[in-house]
């Protein structure tokens, strides 16, 4: 398989994953997304092994290594802070219900964020986990772009078409 065919396949997989995600959100079927992501990753992995062009060498390995290390160095700090806060919530004293200063019931929650009380704890956990995952991905992509640029990934010269 050629390198460009592989990238094209990756694009198709991403589009399918987004469509599956939208469909499963609409129909409230969670496991479909999980299974489709797993299948997508397996297909991408198998396709990558069948690429005949050279797409990885020591420079790309160094870019990946440096980006991963920097991502880890920042992510563990954020994750540690979040986990410490979560731990304090678990083992800390029970919270007293907030005293309402309103002479009437508080206003309804602003759209689209419901009050935290209305969300089950496992959903809050899932949401925070998703935010952390998004942060991880953004950090990695950011560092990857930075180091790729530093090590001449997008440099051009007279031989370039």
């Amino acid at each position, binding site marked *: 398989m050629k390198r460009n065919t592989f990238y094209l396949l990756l694009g198709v997989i991403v589009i399918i994953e987004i469509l599956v995600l939208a469909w499963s959100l609409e129909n409230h079927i969670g496991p479909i997304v999980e299974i489709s992501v797993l299948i997508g990753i397996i297909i991408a992995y198998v396709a990558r092994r069948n690429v005949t062009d*050279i797409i990885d*060498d020591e420079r790309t390995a160094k870019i990946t290594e440096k980006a991963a290390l920097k991502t880890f160095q920042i992510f563990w700090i954020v994750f540690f802070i979040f986990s410490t806060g979560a731990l304090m919530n678990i083992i800390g004293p029970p919270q007293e219900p907030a005293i309402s200063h309103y002479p009437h019931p508080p206003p309804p929650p602003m759209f689209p964020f419901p009050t935290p009380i209305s969300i089950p704890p496992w959903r809050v956990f899932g949401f925070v986990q998703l935010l952390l995952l998004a942060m991880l991905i953004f950090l990695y992509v950011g560092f990857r772009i930075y180091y790729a640029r530093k*090590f*001449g990934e997008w440099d051009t010269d007279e*031989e370039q078409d």
Partner: protein
Amino acid sequence: MLANLGNGILMKNRIKVFRAMYDLTQENLASNLGVTRQTILAIEKGKYDPSLELAFRIARFFKVNVEEVFLFDETGDNMKLP
């Protein structure tokens, strides 16, 4: 063709010269060495210092010693003894 190693020491290389001598494109050289064209370009531009293994492979490919392709700039202040 100068690569800053981060401590003020500069590495130079003559890959472009050798490519011209052998009439090779970056793509040809890259495929012969098993690396990407961008890696050859990055080395030539001094953006990336190859590993010792790749440096030797490049030198062997051109049938010269590694010192003839990669030059260590010893004129910098960092080379002075304490």
